[in-house]
C-alpha cells in the first residue's frame, strides 16, 4: 500500500476531522469510480463502491489533485474524474435526479446536490411550487451540525403548471 496520507479530511458533512486512510476508507478493491469537485470545505473526493454506495471526503487542497490521480490510478486502477461546479450565482436552471440525489444544474454545471434520503417532508404548494424540508443533513446525530443548517428549499417549477389561462396571469 501507499504511504500517502491526507490530513484534515472530513467524512461527509461531519464536523470532526480525520485522515483519508484506515478505518474510514473503503477496501481498495471495492472502489469503482472517483470524482473530484469543489465544495465549501475546499475540494471533495467522492468514491463509488459496491452496491451503488458512495463516500464523500471533504477538505482536500487543490494541490492534492495530482497526487490523488496518481494514487487512484496506481493502487485502485481508477481515473479521477472532475465534476464541474458552477459559481455564476444564478437561481434558474434544471433539476436532474442522479441516483439518490437531486442535482440543480446551471448551464449544465452542478450548483448543488440534495440527498433525497434526508428529505423529511415534501409539499406541492400552488401549481408551480415544490418545497423540500430537510432534517439531519449531517450524517451522525451525535455530532453537532457545523455552520448554518438548511431546513427547507422551495423550487418554482413552471413545468408542473398546466396551460395558463388566456392573457393575464400577472398576480399570484
Amino acid at each position, binding site marked *: 500500500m501507499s504511504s500517502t496520507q491526507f490530513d484534515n479530511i472530513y467524512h461527509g458533512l461531519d464536523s470532526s476531522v480525520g485522515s483519508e486512510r484506515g478505518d474510514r476508507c473503503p477496501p481498495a478493491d471495492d472502489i469503482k469510480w472517483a470524482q473530484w469537485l469543489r465544495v*465549501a470545505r475546499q475540494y471533495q473526493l467522492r468514491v463509488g463502491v459496491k452496491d451503488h454506495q458512495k463516500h464523500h471526503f471533504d477538505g482536500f487542497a487543490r494541490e492534492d489533485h495530482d497526487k490523488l490521480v496518481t494514487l487512484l490510478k496506481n493502487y485502485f486502477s481508477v481515473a479521477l474524474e472532475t465534476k464541474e461546479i458552477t*459559481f455564476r*450565482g*444564478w*437561481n434558474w436552471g434544471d433539476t436532474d435526479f442522479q441516483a439518490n440525489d437531486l442535482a440543480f444544474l446551471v448551464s449544465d454545471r452542478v450548483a448543488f446536490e440534495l440527498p433525497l434520503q434526508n428529505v423529511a417532508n415534501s409539499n406541492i404548494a400552488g401549481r408551480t411550487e415544490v418545497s423540500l424540508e430537510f432534517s439531519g443533513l449531517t450524517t451522525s446525530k451525535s455530532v453537532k451540525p457545523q*455552520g*448554518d443548517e438548511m431546513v427547507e428549499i422551495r*423550487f*418554482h417549477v*413552471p413545468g408542473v403548471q398546466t396551460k395558463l389561462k388566456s392573457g393575464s396571469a400577472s398576480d399570484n
Partner: protein
Amino acid sequence: GKKNEDKTWKKFQSYKGELALPPDVERLRVFVDRKAQTVILPINGFAVPFHINTIKNVSKNDEGDLTYLRINFQTPGQLAGKKEDTPFENPDATFVRSVSFRSPDGARFDNLQKQITDLKKEANKREQQRKQLAD
C-alpha cells in the same frame, strides 16, 4: 427609453470560477460577499453563490432557542406591473424560490438580514441610476 431595449436580459455573474470564492465559505455559514454583490449559501456541503439580482428579500423569525432565516428569490410571475425588470435568461427554467436556514445564533442572523437587505438596496439604487442614464 425605447421599449424594445427594456425587455433585454442584462447578464450578471457572481464568480468566474472556483478560485474566486472567498475562503470564508469553509465555515459552512451564510456569507455576504459585498464586493461580488453575492450571497453564498451552504447547501449540503456546497458553497452556492446567488447574485443579489436573484434575491428578492430576506425574512427572519425566532422560534424558541432557534432563529430561522429565509432568503426569497426572484422568480417569474412575481413582478406584477414591472415586466421590464425580468432578470431571467429563461423564464421556463426551474427556479430556486427560497432557502431557509436555522441557527441558535440569532444575533448573527439579524446581522445577515441587515447585510443582505442593504446589498439589495444598493443594487436597486444602481439599477435606477443606470436606467436614468439610459433615458
